[in-house]
């Protein structure tokens, strides 16, 4: 069982839902990323999605675009991001790490070299935003041989036929993109999400994490009741941007944002 499957199963057994924060590696500075990852775990994260910065993040809104720019100004590379995971693993070998990004940095590194390094560092899953399963025939066997879970997106526009096909290429969990739009762009409609997630679950059995548009504890709690995991990104990245000059204030601000989500998600529905 992969680390992600293990966490998802344990959460399910406890009747709880996974809290999955996203931050961009290297933002605001590569030296701070490992510390921020530990902060997220202390604040209640079950899985971390660690963004690999890319110069042209087409599926992201301005908040994550700017995070990529901050990380790239300091020369953050995919190899360094993998090294951050290795460093993180020295003191945390339970929290699953999913690398999330775009295909080109991985292609430039070489798929086999990437898969080797990621597995060696303790990466658990890989979500490549611009790699639909139809184009994943090269990476899929490399990931499978190293127990890296391929995480794919599903969207409001995903047809039943594709839900089935995507689930057959996925392991760990699937990431349901709750809105038509880029990251950080719109507010989530809980009822619509509930309906679609229920529909997805009728078709496939993997856990469903829901992301895009979740900014506060109430929404996190509401989404957690209709899914298996709550993915929170832009609001955290925005917090990082606002406190980039003051690491202590940043740690506190991230905790103040994430911990109430954890508490709300673990509280019985009122």
């Amino acid at each position, binding site marked *: 069982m992969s680390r992600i499957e293990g966490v998802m199963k344990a959460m399910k057994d406890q009747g709880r839902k996974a809290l999955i924060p996203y931050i961009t590696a290297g933002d605001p500075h590569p030296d701070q990323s490992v510390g921020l990852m530990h902060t997220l775990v202390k604040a209640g994260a079950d899985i971390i999605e660690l963004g690999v910065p*890319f*110069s*042209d*993040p*087409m*599926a*992201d*809104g*301005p908040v994550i*675009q700017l995070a990529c720019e901050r990380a*790239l100004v300091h020369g953050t*590379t*995919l*190899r360094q991001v993998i090294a951050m995971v290795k460093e993180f693993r020295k003191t945390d070998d339970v929290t699953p790490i999913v690398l999330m990004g*775009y*295909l*080109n*940095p*991985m*292609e*430039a*590194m070489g798929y086999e070299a990437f898969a080797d390094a990621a597995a060696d560092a303790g990466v658990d899953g890989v979500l490549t*935003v*611009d*790699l*639909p399963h*139809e*184009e994943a025939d090269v990476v899929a066997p490399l990931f499978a041989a190293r127990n890296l879970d391929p995480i*794919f*997106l*599903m*969207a*409001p*526009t*995903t*047809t039943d036929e*594709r839900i089935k096909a*995507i689930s057959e290429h996925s392991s760990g969990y699937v990431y349901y*993109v709750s809105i*038509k*739009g*880029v990251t950080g*762009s*719109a507010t989530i409609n809980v009822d619509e999400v509930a309906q679609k997630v229920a529909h997805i679950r009728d078709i496939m059995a993997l856990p469903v994490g829901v992301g895009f548009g979740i900014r506060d504890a109430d929404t996190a709690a509401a989404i957690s009741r209709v899914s298996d995991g709550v993915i929170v990104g832009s609001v955290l990245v925005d917090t990082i941007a606002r406190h980039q000059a003051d690491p202590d204030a940043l740690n506190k601000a991230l905790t103040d944002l994430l911990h109430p989500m954890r508490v709300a998600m673990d509280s019985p529905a009122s």
Partner: protein
Amino acid sequence: MSVKLTEEMLKALPDARGHFGAFGGRFVSETLIDSLMTLEREYLRLKDDAEFQATFDKDLADYVGRPSPLYFAERLTKKAGGAQIWLKREDLNHTGAHKVNNTIGQALLASFLGKKRIIAETGAGQHGVATATVCARLGLECHVFMGAEDVKRQSLNVYRMKLLGATVHSVQSGTKTLKDAMNDAMRDWVANVDDTFYIIGTVAGPHPYPLLVRDFQSVIGRETRRQALEQAGKLPDALVACVGGGSNAIGMFHPFLADETVELYGVEAGGLGIETGQHAAPLCAGRPGVLHGNRTYLMEDENGQIAATHSVSAGLDYPGVGPEHSWLKDIGRAHYVSVTDDEALDGFRMLTQIEGIMPALETAHAVAYAVKLAATMDKDKMIVINISGRGDKDIHTIAQLDGIEI
């Protein structure tokens, strides 16, 4: 090492996944996949639909003004001192460039799909103008994304688009040029995927765009082939076209791919010189990667981050290129070369002064290379340059280089 291409082989490309050999494909986030699959299905149906094709052909004739002439440039030929140089006059199309061939076709597709809102990216503004034009004609809402840097250097086209009723979005992210305009157009599309049709301006992007843009632009090569046979009694020996994303070049080349004797030359923007790194020549100096929905030659750093490009011409200032060009390069069917900003400017002045035809700065790259090429060829040989656009939009840039305020 060039392979002989047959009509049969060419019909099979791109394959069902949109691949041209190792290039092309559909690398986009999940939200867009369904729209792209619908577009592919509908296009494959309409491409053989008599009514659709008749409407397209009629629009090209009556609205665009096709066929565009094939003109023998006698004085330019004499100046170059070698092969005969002929010009395919895409600059005489309505809106002043080849871009309109494609926007007519895609707007027609949008109408068949019932989409009322159109978005487009633009570099030099020619595709933006061509899109705004067809939207005005069909009463469609039009949004054009343009890098802030390009908004500055192509202000005339920005104003043209506004006059035509389009909203121009100045893109402030990244390098503020064509690639960033394309990023933002894709972001808009994801958010408005239900009612919006994205008219991509070049033969890049996710499948089926490289296919359908190539098909719409192939009218250039088909006409050239027929006109060359009628006017010169033979096929050309060489075709020369500038390559940014590569739509005018593919439109010119594609109908000749199976004609072994016709050499194909794509001219990329050499900027300040390939050796300086300040250029926009992915086929000459880049390597394969994935950007904007397709695998193709890219300008990138060793870590896979897309590199900033430079060209005096906004329309060529793009780090990628259409995947079919990448394939043509790798199989050796087409030659890809580059000329510098300075050479292109010389080409601009030469064509303006000895033929009275003012080319776009993009096109001037093809002119500059063709003149060099002609000099190496015998006088009984024939070169056709695709004069992809006219140069009015670049007069400010030229004047500025001359230190003149207008």
